């Protein structure tokens, strides 16, 4: 797998870019928080998602490079370049370009100033052989040193030569601020896939720890989410987990710095 160039690029950029104002930190990897960048602020985020273990000897990596900008103090937009690499049994692919994404996020209420934080989110992805529309309702609340967050996610995906698929996901998370810079939490993902016009295919459950560190001008967040016994398995699946499309282990690292 050839993911070294992306990591090298990120580390080089972090080393040569000037120190700047505080960044818009994320304390969770799958579950979004309502915060948006201040007007005019820019960030570069590098995502790496590792997926390990299916029916065969499977290892996959998804990489995303995201350029994020605050258009107003409530509205931010992002542009992504997506890459992926997989090895499934004896079949292996090198790092391949997977498409581009455009994200828009609008914060309506704040998790500290208001009773509950709320934001709307939309993302359009155009891949090499598919396109996807995704929407999220983002809720969060900070109580003392504890962050609580929930996302309701819906996505519609159309792959060339296949029926459209609908995905529904519920993400829940809680994190505790251990120090001003460090937080530790738990994330839970319930991912559901439905083939359009067909029945509910499966409902998978992932849960695991998430650790975040935020410095003045950069932050990093890591989660490791093993798959738990599925809430609904597709017909023919003999084990407790869904390993056709899902994986035994999922780990995600986000690394971001202010431009």
């Amino acid at each position, binding site marked *: 797998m050839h993911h070294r160039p992306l990591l090298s690029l990120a580390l080089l950029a972090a080393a040569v870019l000037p120190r700047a*104002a505080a960044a818009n*930190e994320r304390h969770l990897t799958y579950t979004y928080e309502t915060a948006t960048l*201040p007007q005019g*602020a820019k960030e570069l985020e590098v995502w790496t998602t590792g997926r390990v273990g299916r029916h065969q000897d499977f290892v996959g990596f998804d990489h995303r490079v995201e350029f994020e900008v605050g258009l107003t103090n*409530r509205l931010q937009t992002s542009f992504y370049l997506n890459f992926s690499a997989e090895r499934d049994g004896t079949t292996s692919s090198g790092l391949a370009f997977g498409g581009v994404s455009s994200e828009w996020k609008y914060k309506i209420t*704040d998790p*500290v100033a208001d*009773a509950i934080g709320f934001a709307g989110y939309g993302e359009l992805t155009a891949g090499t052989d598919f396109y996807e529309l995704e929407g999220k309702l983002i809720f969060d609340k900070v*109580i003392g040193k504890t962050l609580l967050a929930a996302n309701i996610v819906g996505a519609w995906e159309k792959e060339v030569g296949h029926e459209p698929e609908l995905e529904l996901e519920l993400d829940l998370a809680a994190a505790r601020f251990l120090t001003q810079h460090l937080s530790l939490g738990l994330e839970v993902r319930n991912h559901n896939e439905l083939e359009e016009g067909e029945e509910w295919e499966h409902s998978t459950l992932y849960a695991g720890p998430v650790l975040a560190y935020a410095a003045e001008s950069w932050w990093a967040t890591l989660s490791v989410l093993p798959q738990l016994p599925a809430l609904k398995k597709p017909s023919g699946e003999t084990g407790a987990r869904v390993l056709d499309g899902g994986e035994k282990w999922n780990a995600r690292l986000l690394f971001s710095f202010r431009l």
Partner: protein
Amino acid sequence: MKRVVLLPLLAVVAALGCAGQLPPPSEADALRASSRYPGTTVADLTRGRKLYVEHCSGCHALVRPQTKGPDEWPKLVAEMTERAKLPEATAQEIVRYLVVASGAPR
């Protein structure tokens, strides 16, 4: 069955809502402010609160004003003003709001 799910959910949402927010400034806050900032109105403090939420929450979770003493806020905001490149007038409005709100009775 729906009630079984909805009622605990509503209770959680209500509890979260009551768990704390930044209350809008009141006449009592403006009156208390007058000793340190003569002529301060509720509108001034409301504008300071708005600027605090808009400018500061983009980089970090907001700090509740009462978790710091009135004399701590000017120094903290001065440090942040440099990092966040806030205009001086904006920073002063934020300081005034935080100093006054930090002294509000709990």
